[in-house]
């Protein structure tokens, strides 16, 4: 299948996914008890004010009309007005999203850079001490609760040792970095400020280590098992029989084939990180989408919650598309088929 038709197909799928996701979120958010209009104006406001707000935000309309309006807005990239911040939800998300993405990408990069070599090492040295240690770590990584790990790391490195910052993306007293892309690492470099870059990187250490802790184990396990499978295949034997060096055998012949299933796992992890940012961002006071949506939930800010959900669902579909594109690059058998 060509990449063009793949993209078109996924875009069509995205429409279906968004329809389903918005419908479910919309219904759920309207059956939970609580009155957003009342939350907005406060407990002491008069009934008239509440009624006016309700009318203003269309909350007095029947449910299907409200949903229709929401969808109509969505088509124009209008996610409504946040009840809490009084700003368009799309603007809020665009403000907070880069922080989340920056953290997610850093932690994925860390997990890939550590997890894949660990998996390869473990597969090549199967049933040795290295392999046993790496497998033990994998099980440990998968079964460690993230919030517990985050809190413990804060306690040790921030609380006791005081060697790493515990909250935020950058030292609040450091000079302002003008926002261009929203990614502090990029913006500080664009500005030419190495000090700010270093500081932003410094703030990324704890949360991205914490987020990658699980994924290192997941990736290592996946790479290990696919490497072991690939190393037993006939074409590896052919390569050996022709005197191909061990290095080329492992990295050129085996790893490329073993990466095909691994890419799926990495893609799923990126999706999880976007949706799962809520926990880490809360623990490390990271000003990203996760923190934003937690605050919005406390405020019954339905447009914001819906907007977050739509954003994450879109992210999932796009990541799946990227995974499929990566497949076609890694595996020529997928190209030209379909």
């Amino acid at each position, binding site marked *: 299948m060509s990449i063009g038709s793949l993209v078109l197909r996924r875009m069509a799928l995205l429409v279906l996914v968004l329809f389903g996701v918005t419908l479910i979120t919309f219904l759920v958010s309207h059956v939970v008890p609580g009155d957003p209009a009342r939350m907005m104006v406060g407990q002491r406001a008069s009934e008239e004010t509440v009624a006016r707000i309700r009318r203003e935000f269309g909350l007095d309309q029947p449910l299907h009309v409200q949903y229709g309006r929401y969808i109509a807005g969505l088509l124009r990239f209008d996610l409504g007005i946040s009840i809490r911040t009084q700003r368009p939800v799309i603007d809020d998300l665009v403000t907070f999203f880069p922080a989340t993405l920056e953290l997610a990408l850093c932690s994925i990069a860390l997990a890939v850079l550590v997890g894949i070599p660990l998996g390869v090492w473990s597969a090549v040295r199967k049933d040795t001490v290295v392999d046993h240690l790496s497998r033990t770590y994998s099980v440990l990584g998968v079964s460690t609760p993230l919030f517990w790990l985050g809190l413990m790391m804060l306690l040790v490195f921030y609380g006791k040792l005081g060697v790493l910052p515990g909250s935020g993306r950058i030292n609040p007293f450091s000079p302002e970095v003008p926002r261009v892309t929203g990614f502090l690492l990029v913006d500080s470099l664009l500005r030419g400020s190495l000090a700010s870059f270093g500081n932003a990187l410094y703030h990324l250490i704890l949360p991205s280590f914490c987020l990658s802790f699980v994924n290192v184990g997941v990736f290592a396990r996946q790479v290990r098992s696919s490497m072991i499978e690939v190393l037993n*295949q*006939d*074409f590896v*034997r*052919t*390569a*050996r*029989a*022709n*005197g*191909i*060096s*061990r290095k*080329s055998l492992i990295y*050129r*012949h085996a790893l*490329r*084939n073993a990466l095909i299933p691994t890419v799926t796992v990495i893609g799923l992890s990126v999706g999880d990180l976007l949706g799962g940012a809520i926990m880490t961002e809360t623990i490390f006071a990271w000003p990203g989408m996760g923190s934003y949506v937690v605050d919005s939930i406390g405020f019954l800010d339905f447009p914001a919650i819906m907007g977050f959900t739509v954003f994450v669902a879109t992210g999932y579909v796009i990541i799946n598309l990227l995974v499929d594109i990566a497949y076609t690059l*890694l*595996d*020529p*058998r997928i190209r030209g088929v379909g």
Partner: protein
Amino acid sequence: MSTAAAVRGTRSAAEDQNQPLLEVQGLHLEFPTYWGVTRALNGVDLALRRGEIAGLVGESGCGKSVTAMAVMRLLPEGHYRVPQGRILFRGEDLLARDEQGMQRIRGQHISMIFQEPMTSLNPTIRVGRQIAEVIQSHQDVTRSAATARAADLLREMRIPDAERVAGLYPHELSGGMRQRSMIAMALSCEPDLLIADEPTTALDVTVQAQVLALLKQKCVERRTAVLLITHDLGVVANVCRQVAVMYAGNVVETGPVDEVLASPRHPYTAALLETIPERFHRDERLRVIPGSVPSLLHPPPGCRFHPRCAAAAPRCARERPPVFWSTSVCAGGDRHGAACWLLEDRDGNCGWEECSP
């Protein structure tokens, strides 16, 4: 032998005769398993001269492939033992080489092709590149020179439009084309010995004949010795000059193909020949050898074939027969030998006359 040596010319006949290219001497090989030790090879002897094409035949599980894999040292290290025996290649024991040393042998001096053309090439690398990588591993050539050489080799294997095919991935080729590419890869560094493990078994019959003829022609041109592993005696008759028949980890009969197929001396070889269905006999029942290959965990004592042998005597169950050789030398200088007690009984001096002039 003499005619073949004369053709070779450059190498002295004495060198060829005194020192076979490959000589497997009394090779014992075992796999320790959970249930006990599997004695896969039980004293295998084989000899192959430069430029010679020899067949290694036998039923599945008789140790043909294990012998080949042992020569290439491709069996999983640490999962097998060689309690006895040597594998001499150009006079040097390959068992003494380390993995790095074997890497230089493989592909360059000995190469191997396998049965499964569908899975034996890397699906993610273009065919030409895979061949070029082998060339680059053994020769000091540039990437582009190796790539050009790969296309030349494919053309030589009678692949039409070789430049284009070199840029294709294995899944885009037919089974026959893949096997031709495998042969091209195996011959890319002009090895002295090519081990072909059932190279045509997975191909359909018409393609089989083409690929075999090609393999034979290219190896004769290059004077590459071939050890052709097969269970198909027809293939052996067509392609090989020498044949060794294996049964349950032993070589039971060896000699020039014409002799062995025309007058087999070992009952197993005879039985194997019996199983070949004759053409055009519609109502004929297919003949089989009764019983099956014994478990190598608990092989029968004495001659390993005796439980299935129609001519077995009490002695066969007690003592392992040595190889008895024919007293006459056949055309080419080879002798016909078989490991069977029947041969001793026939003639007091442990031999027999054959080889009509």
